[in-house]
């Protein structure tokens, strides 16, 4: 095989007056980028003439690693995509495998998953919005909300034992039912968080300085956003009401009553407002899921893929066989290609999986919303100032882990 690569040169044309412009490196490790990625900006005084994003600083080859991991060992890889809302990634992956093996998932698990995914969405949005406020100079609101991120992480801890990179649940359900402590912590969160969120909104939402800094900054039209395959809050801020939870309901989202907030102008303020309203909708979904939660088991009946209880393994031969086969990654899966998408905190998070019937995926591609919409960033900040470019990046919620995979 011929492996010689051609070298492709940067084809950006030289601009008239180029010799008067200065070059500015934003990143790779700049505190305002909230992650490891670089922008080489060509500046005409205060204005950005051109920007060239360089990414890949924390590329960890997850798609390649996944080609050697049994299905249950891929969950920890998904944690590290969008690490601000890891449960959505974990559960999205579990649902992809469940679709492949056509497992039937009881209602109770679907509702529990909805609770966790919406909780993850709240934590992700609250980080994005409060950090956006910090970038405009308002540090107080950030401290108010971060207390509740901590409480949400304590709920994760009760459910799965981990906080940030959660590795939550199993293929087919959860490893254990929610403990009473998890329920009481959830109640505590649901009681306290709306008060803090209200206070945050009072501080920021109609704040003159914040509005002046964000309205009309980093605009993108709905047409461009669709052509760039934007998804999630960034697309909805332009006025397009595309939400995977409604268009292709998964995990029983059709049972809940919620609105899709949309913006109008697609600017930084609209993105902020869409996220803000989505947090309220998420809280309402969590409440509905708790109220309607059916009785039932906490895992599906798929002995080939779900580990039996330890007691059984020691005393029952079939359980021992299944245990061994699952741990060694020798459970049979059908051949086929499956695509499953969930509404991640940043947009459509998709898993494209090709199985050849072997123990590992033949090919697994993550559709990372960040990676796809970040390419519009140079166009969005063209002609703006550095300080506005920072806010645009912050409001797009670019997460380095998801960007680089």
């Amino acid at each position, binding site marked *: 095989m011929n492996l010689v690569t051609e070298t492709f040169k940067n084809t950006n044309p030289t601009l008239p007056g180029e010799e008067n412009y200065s070059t500015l490196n934003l990143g790779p490790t700049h505190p305002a980028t909230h992650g490891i990625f670089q922008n080489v900006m060509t500046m005409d005084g205060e204005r950005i003439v051109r920007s060239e994003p360089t990414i890949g600083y924390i590329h960890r080859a997850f798609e390649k690693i996944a080609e050697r991991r049994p299905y249950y060992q891929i969950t920890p890889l998904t944690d590290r995509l969008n690490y601000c809302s890891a449960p959505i990634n974990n559960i999205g992956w579990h649902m992809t495998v469940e679709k492949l093996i056509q497992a039937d998932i009881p209602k109770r698990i679907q509702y529990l998953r909805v609770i966790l995914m919406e909780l993850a969405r709240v934590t992700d949005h609250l980080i994005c919005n409060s950090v956006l406020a910090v970038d405009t100079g308002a540090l107080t609101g950030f401290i108010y909300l971060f207390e509740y991120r901590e409480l949400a992480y304590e709920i994760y801890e009760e459910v799965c034992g981990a906080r940030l990179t959660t590795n939550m649940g199993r293929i087919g359900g959860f490893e254990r039912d929610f403990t009473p402590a998890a329920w009481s912590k959830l109640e505590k969160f649901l009681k306290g968080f709306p008060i803090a969120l209200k206070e945050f909104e009072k501080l920021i939402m109609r704040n003159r300085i914040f509005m002046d800094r964000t309205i009309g900054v980093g605009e993108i039209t709905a047409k461009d956003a669709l052509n760039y395959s934007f998804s999630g809050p960034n697309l909805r801020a332009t006025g397009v009401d595309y939400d995977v939870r409604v268009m292709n309901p998964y995990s029983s989202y059709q049972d809940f009553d919620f609105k899709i907030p949309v913006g109008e102008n697609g600017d930084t303020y609209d993105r902020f407002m869409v996220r803000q309203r989505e947090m309220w909708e998420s809280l309402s979904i969590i409440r509905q899921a708790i109220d309607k939660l059916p009785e039932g088991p906490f895992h599906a009946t798929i002995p080939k893929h779900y580990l039996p209880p330890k007691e059984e393994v020691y005393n029952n031969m079939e359980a021992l066989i299944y245990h061994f086969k699952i741990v060694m990654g020798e459970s049979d899966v059908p051949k086929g*290609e*499956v*695509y499953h998408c969930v509404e991640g905190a940043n947009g459509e998070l998709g898993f*494209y999986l090709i199985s050849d019937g072997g123990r*590992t995926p033949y090919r697994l591609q993550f559709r990372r919303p960040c990676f796809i919409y*970040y390419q519009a960033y140079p166009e969005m900040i063209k002609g703006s100032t550095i300080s506005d470019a920072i806010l645009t990046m912050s409001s797009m919620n670019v997460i380095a882990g998801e960007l680089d995979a």
Partner: protein
Amino acid sequence: MTDLATDRTVSFLNEKFGDAILGQETQYDFHVVTVMPSHLIDILKELYSNPEFSYQYLTTLAGIHYPLDQKMAVMYQLHSLTSNQRLRIKIYISDDQPTAPSITSIFKAANWLERETYDFYGIVFEGHPDLRRILNVDDMIFFPMRKEFPLEDQTREDKEDEMFGR
């Protein structure tokens, strides 16, 4: 997802492009259509602009390597937000000096996705405005997602890798 029974897209493609359609199958909730690489742009343009379908949203794009058939595939996944239909289109190309037409003229989103596919599979997208590596370092001389690069250290002699190897 797509209501496969009522979806007219595949029959429309067969009527309109006849010979350029090499195969079709159904994978879970998707119609998968294999087309000739030379007709890819025409087909995507038609699906984009035809008001009955308006597949105007590129969900994702991915390369796949089949070393046993000495082939590579590029998968394009389209979504029509007006009718909420999804469609997967595939092209197969040789894995020796693979080239494929670039669809950046239709979807701007394909820009980085094609760069990523080039970066990992070495598929050269003809007509791409700025085809460079994106996630790996620029002076890398191989394409790491190809199947001839196994993850395990091949110099190891202490164990037979049949159980764990692919």
